[in-house]
């Protein structure tokens, strides 16, 4: 390891699975070249990193992790996009991932790709959890409105 962990993670691309892709398209505006807000689109998130981080947090909070997923979407954005937008979110994700690691060596503990993979597995789990929730009768429109996000956050146990 030649570099500090956070710097190393920041340079790496975030990979994510197909459940997250679905959630991303449901709740985030399309990021277009030059600008990322289309006027007709009033989805809650305006950047992909936001929906990724949100799904990951949902995954961590609810203990939902999808392991072994090939995480085929590998070219979306670098982790530093999250760090630049919100250091708190980026650091929290890394620390939560470290908290979930069961390793015996320091080298493994500080493996940036491993950390990113754990975050993405929870993001995939969180995305799946949200999609399942929306399939529950009465919850089909869950997270279609801003209030739902506040409710979920405010009412966490």
């Amino acid at each position, binding site marked *: 390891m030649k570099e500090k962990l956070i710097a190393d993670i920041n340079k790496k691309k975030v990979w994510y699975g197909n459940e997250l892709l679905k959630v991303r398209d449901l709740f985030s505006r399309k990021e277009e070249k030059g600008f990322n807000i289309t006027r007709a689109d009033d989805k809650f998130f305006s950047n992909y990193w936001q929906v990724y981080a949100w799904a990951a947090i949902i995954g961590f909070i609810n203990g939902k992790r999808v392991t072994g997923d090939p995480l085929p979407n590998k070219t979306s954005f670098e982790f530093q996009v999250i760090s630049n937008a919100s250091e708190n979110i980026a650091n929290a994700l890394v620390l939560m991932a470290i908290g979930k690691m069961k390793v015996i060596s320091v080298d493994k503990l*500080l493996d940036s790709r491993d950390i990113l993979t754990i975050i993405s597995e929870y993001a995939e789990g969180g995305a799946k959890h949200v999609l399942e929730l929306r399939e529950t009768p009465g919850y089909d429109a869950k997270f279609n409105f801003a209030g739902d996000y506040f409710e979920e956050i405010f009412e966490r146990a």
Partner: protein
Amino acid sequence: MIIRQVTICNFFCYLGENKFAFDEGLNIVSGRNGSGKSQFFNAFYWTFFDKIYTEDNAEKKKKWTDSRNVAIYPHALIPVTDPGGQFTTSVSVSFNADDYNKPAYSAEEPVTYIFKREVTFRNTDRGFSAIIPAELSIEYIKDGETFILSRGEHDMVLDKIFPKSIRKFMWYQGETMDELYNFSKVPTLNAAINEISYFPKYDFMNKVVIAADKSINKKIEKELAQQNRLTREQNAIYNDISFLEKTIDLKEGQKNELAEQLFNLEDEMTRTEQKLEGMDQFVEYKVKLAQLEAELRNVKDKIDDIDINTKERLINTWMLNRCDKLIKASGPNLEMLNAEIQQQQAHKNPVPMNLPGPEYVEQMLNDKVCYICERPVEPESDAYEALKRRLNDFELNAQVKLLQENYTELNRYRKKLLTDLPKINEEIAENQTKQDNLIKRRNALGKQINNLFADLGMEGRADLDTRATAAQQNVQKLKTYRADITAKQKRLSALEQELMSQKASLFEKKRVRDGFTKADQSNLVESQAADYITLFLKSISVLKDRAYDTLIAELEQESNRLYALYLDNKQQGRITIGNGVHVVDVKTDLPLIDLNQGEVVAQKLAVANAFLSLSERKMNRSYPLIADAPSSDLDAVNTYNLTVNIGGSFEQIIIMSKDYIQFSDHDLNKLIVEANVKHFYRIDNQYIDPNGGTSRQNRRSIATIIK
């Protein structure tokens, strides 16, 4: 002047022909609100002046309006008039008054006038409209002969019969009492004195003798000049007198012109103030609205800011709510990292740690010499091995350093997050409260704005803007008038000073002139005549001043008599007339301000009525007093007193009022006797068809003769 009969036909609530007879003395038309009293009053005013006193929808205030802007026909005729059908509305008033042709103050018998205004309405596609504008016809009957006046003579006859300066208190509405002439203003008082008192007669006589004096002295001067009996100095005196007289005449003219301008300006100012009275609320409302709207904008901006900020905070921090435990869970792994760092730092080596760098140690190994102790270092020796280990230490240290940095950084983030995250719920709740309060405020402000428009009875702010602008324009006008008045008053005062000094100078020159005319030319007939004219001049000037003083004293006396009667001798003040009209304390003579409404009304009525009363007594010129709700600002006792006492002051009074319905039949009969009421009518608004509903189309006013 005595009104004899009023015939009202199809006018407002008066359906068909309605006749009212009146006589000298007090006549009363009584009725509840909405019975038709005010329309009875309007019948008079419409006939004579083609105006209706009605509410202006836009300004929510009653005002005099051209009759063509008001539907004066009975609504009851709307359903019964076929399309194309028509009906006529008319009011005719017959009265006895002085012949408008006769010279002033002649003792000829009054003639009978019949004023009739008539208009025909037709039911057209666009509703009821007048076929031609309402037309006035004036007939007068003299010595049994009827004459019809040409339209060109109408205004002149009206002005003669109803002098403009007294119309306001000859025809008045209780509601418009504020609009009565304000006699506290000197020009207003003087205008009334000049138009309806006996004082102008004396003033005129004075002018005549002044002219005679001038004329006779001219003749003397001419005579003396022809006889070459004037010295150069005496000639100069005549020239000076002539110049001074011309200058004084000119300046008197300017003074009168200025006084008239001031009078008009003050009148205009009063009118503007009255206009503003109904409109100043719009300015207040506009200011209030602007404040409310500014606050609303501010609150909305804050709500928008909170909305944006809330979402930003949610995405950037609040999403981590309750993640503390998960972050705390990173502790053991970070401790493992720390342990590794400790372990790697635990290495022992006799070679000091503070060597310059790995190159230095490498040189020592190559040279096989320890540059620290200057001793040879043999390969495989302990010292050689220690140096080799130190070389590795540099690499190891770099790794430990990186590990340490990672540990420190992660630990710092962890600590920060564990401090920040527990506050999220509190922060969200606080944010929510703030937002709720702002939303409540926004709704309350919205309601206040709506209420404000509801109060004004307006749809939107455009209306308010227009009115407020008009009000501001009037405020601006008032400022201009005030500035103009101040400037003119200064000019007037300067003119009066100049006049005073020139009059003194003229007096002095005349004294010199009289000295030499008396000494040298007493044989001249003109000079003897001049002596008599001077005598007239002096005596009539004194007479004129006395007449003025007497008039003021009589006005004061009559005003105070009426004032006391109207207020049942409970008045706290006394009316003084001199430099305008004022009320002073009966005991201390100090001016009284803040009189109650009853006292203000009584004072205005008393002075106005004193003028009319004196005009009638001293000059045999009487005007009927036609008043709608004159007692509306008075209580029952004062109403009773006013009624009992007002009758004695005038040849004829016609009062329309709702204030008599408060009296029992017994009290009313007592009042009719005590006040010597000549005619008492009660007007009731009745349903035409008892089962026809409450619409105006099913109503008419019916008069019942009580006396």
